[in-house]
Every structure is written in C-alpha cells, then in structure tokens.
C-alpha cells in the first residue's frame, strides 16, 4: 500500500548548520494494517508521517502510495492531528461535511453521511456545536469523523491522543479500535506511548533519534478484537511492552543521552 524508499530529511536550522531529521528510512505498510511509529520526541516520526501525507517533501528518497510517487496531499490519505485542526468557524456538522462537499457529494447526501459518522464517533446531539464549545476529546472525535467522511484509503494519525488526559485517551483508543474493526482501513499511527502502540497495532516501528532511524520493527501478534481490560492481564501483551521499553532504555544508555 505504502512504500517508503530510502527517505532522508534534512532541515536547515540556521544559515550554516543542518539537522538530519530522518536518515535513510525504508518501510512498507500493507493494506489494512495498523502500524504505529514509536519513538522519543525529536526522532522524526511525525516528519515521516508528513512525508507520506505529502505535506513535506523528502530531501532524498521517495514515498509511494499504491505504486505512485507521492508529490502532494490528497484525499486518499487522511490526516488526524494532535492539534485537532478543526475549522473553528464551522459547526461540528459543517466540519464533517467539508470533505464530502469538496469532493462534489450532494449536500443532502453529505449531510446524511456526516450525521451518521457523528453518531458513530459518539457525538449525536452535538451537530450544531462549534469547536470552541467542545472538550479536547470531543474535538478529536470530530476530527476523526471529518477525516473518515471523505473516505481516505489510509489514515495518518499524528499523536492524535497526545493532548488528552489519561482517561479520555483510553476511551478514544477503545473507540478508535472499534471503528477500525469495521472496515480495517490502513492506519499509520505516530505515538511516543509504548502501551498505546502495542495495544492498537499489528506492527510497531521503533525509531531512534539523532538522526531518526528505524531501530527495529516488532510484530504485535495479539488476537483481535482486542479488549483493553483483557490485554492488560495478558502476559504476551505485558512482554511486548516490557521488551520495547527495554530496547529504548538500552539506546538511552548507549546513546548521547535522552
């Protein structure tokens, strides 16, 4: 589905110095897979996601979607950002309808689909609210519905639950998995939380920083559908979490310090 081929990204931090954010990343994501990119802040994991989204052009290397080189953003790849990035001048319904309307879906149909999506993310009754009237968790639900509304083939989630409190975060993780179980869209999910990555993913791509490289790819062979309360007691789940945390600890001891 998505092929990332020897991608490097250099940011110019000042006139004379460059920062190598991503170094020689190659990765492929199969259709229908839930893949997390896990790493400490500053490892370039979000940048990698932005390259797939077409928002950032890589300094070298190429990213492909279904065999076609990615040159810019498109509705086949739908982002969900940590900052929500809702349109504040639009109501909840207006936000969710925006994508379908842009794609030429008739207003009546777009509205019907959007109302159904709003219900699916648990916000029935809030259609006419403005973003400023919603809590962080509700905003992120709207953002997810807004992206799902234009039927992207891949969801690009950039630390989507990073700005939420622990309780809200857990609820949204559960709801995301439930929604994902219905159509098993391809998801690339950026996070710095080990348990979030293990809980959600089929595959965890561990990254190390300075420069950002792929450290290791771990296949999370846990049965689905996953129930959080069951998983927390499951020794296999616990082992994945502990193993991954140990690997990061080793890096910190060997590396230039966290």
């Amino acid at each position, binding site marked *: 589905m998505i092929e990332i081929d020897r991608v490097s990204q250099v940011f110019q931090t000042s006139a004379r110095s460059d920062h190598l954010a991503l170094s020689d990343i190659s990765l492929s994501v199969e259709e229908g897979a839930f893949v997390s990119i896990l790493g400490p802040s500053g490892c370039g994991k979000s940048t990698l996601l932005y390259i797939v*989204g*077409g*928002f950032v052009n890589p300094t070298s290397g190429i990213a492909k979607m279904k065999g076609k080189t990615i040159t*810019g*953003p*498109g*509705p086949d*790849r*739908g*982002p969900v*950002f940590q*900052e929500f*990035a*809702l*349109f*504040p*001048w*639009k109501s909840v319904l207006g936000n969710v309808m*925006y*994508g379908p309307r*842009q*794609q030429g879906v008739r207003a009546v149909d777009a509205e019907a689909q959007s109302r159904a999506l709003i219900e699916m993310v648990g916000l029935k009754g809030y259609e006419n609210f*403005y*973003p*400023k*009237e*919603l*809590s962080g*968790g*509700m905003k992120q639900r709207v953002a997810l519905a*807004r*992206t799902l509304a*234009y039927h*992207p083939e891949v969801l690009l989630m950039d630390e989507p639950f990073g700005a*939420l409190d622990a*309780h*809200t975060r857990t*609820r*949204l993780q559960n709801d995301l998995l439930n929604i994902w179980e219905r159509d098993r869209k391809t998801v690339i999910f950026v996070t710095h939380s080990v348990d979030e990555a293990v809980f959600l993913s089929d595959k965890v791509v561990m990254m190390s920083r300075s420069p950002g490289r792929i450290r290791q790819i771990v296949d999370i062979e846990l049965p689905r559908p996953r129930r959080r309360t069951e998983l927390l007691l499951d020794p296999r789940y616990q082992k994945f979490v502990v193993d991954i945390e140990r690997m990061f600890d080793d890096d910190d001891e060997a590396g230039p310090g966290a």
Partner: protein
Amino acid sequence: MTQRGALIARAAPVLACIGLLALWQVASLLLKNDSFPTAVEAIRAVPAILGDKEALINILASLRRMAVGFGVAVAVSVPLGLLMGRSRQVQAFFNPLLMVIYPVPKAALMPIIMLWLGVGDIAKTLVIFLGVSLPVIYHSFEGAKAVEEKMVWSGAAMGLSAAQRLVRIVMPAALPEILTGCRTGLVLALITMITSEMIARQSGAGNILFNALDMGQYDTVFAMIIIVGAMGICLDAAFERVRARLVRWSEPQFDMPLSFS
C-alpha cells in the same frame, strides 16, 4: 451580574456623555473665550447644519468618498495581507515598501496628490484609501500568519487547491483579525476624510468645519465636531455589531466547555 449592576453598566455611557458635556459647559462659562462656545450653544447649532440642504450635500459627499475609499481599500488590502502572510516571497517584496509608507501621515501626502490629481473626489478618496489600507493589510497579514498550518493541511488533504485554501481556509480563519483591522480602518477613514477636506477644501464635512473656523463661527465649528464625532460613533457601533455577528464562533465564552470525552 445583579440587576442593579446591569442597570449601571447600561447607563454608564449615557452618564459619561452627560458628564463630558457638563464639564464642557462649566469650562466654557469659566473661560469666557469667544472661540470656545458652551456645549448648549454648540448643540443648538446642530439642527441648523442638519437642516441646511447645502450642508447635507457636503456631508453626504464626504460619506460617499469615505465609503468608496474604505471599500476599495478593504477589497485590495485583505487579499494582499493574506498573500503576504502565506508566501515568504510576497512578504519579502511588500514588507519594506509598507514599512516606509507606514509612519508617513497619509494626509501629508495630500498636497502632492492634489498636484497630480486635482482637488476633486479622486485625490480625497485616494488619501482615504491609503489611510485605511495599512491597518487592514497589517491585520490580515498577522491573521494569515497565525493560521494553524495543520488546518491548512487538513484542507489540502481534502483536495483544496492553493487558491481555494487561501479563500476558504486562511481567510475565514483569519477573519477575527481581519475585522479588527477593518475597524481601525473605519476610524482612520473618518480621520483622513476630514483632514483631506481640510487641505483640499471644496466640499465635504471638513469644508464646513474649516470655513466656519475661518469666519469665526465657533458654534458651527463645535457643532460640526459633534456631528463628525457622532458619525464616527454610529459607524463604529454598526460595524461592531456586524463584526460580533460574523465572528461569534471565535469569541471566548464564559461558560466552561462541556466536560465529556
């Protein structure tokens, strides 16, 4: 707020006006200066001006120039400011230009503009246009710069072209800031309107005011100041109502957001 508190809050502007007029009346009576009529004398002269056809034509001519200057300025400045906020090249080109023009009092350009364009409507409207443009450009620019990049990206992912993103995402997102600039622009339009007519007398509210000054009709001078001031207050209040309606979605609200994940 208590009912009494609300009543005081509503009465406050009226009380302030009455207080100011009373202060004026007392000061004028104490100073006994011919060029400083009392508030009562000035207010008495207002109906005479508003009842005079010639004066009304003058005032309407002023308002028309102001409306045209303001309208054209907003139509040009908003797109320019937004483009500057989104494109480094456009910003690099226009920023130095604007920095040079910014501190120049626009009315000071009036003599040169008169030399080129005469003393008619075009010259005066141009000065108003210049006066209004800068705050509107500046606020549109700042507004566009502050638009969250991820919001623009979200639009790009939905398939909006660069031009569509500017009009349909950057502009509405920057609207509160743009309208703040327009409000400043509206007041500046009034100021430049009067000053342009002070320099190029021919018609207009400024013409009445400064002719009366020349002839020593001080009650008319102060009556005109009251009229122009009232026009400014009414325009600003009307604009503020429209503005508040357009950006209701962005106003901070006092009740807490719903607590629900």
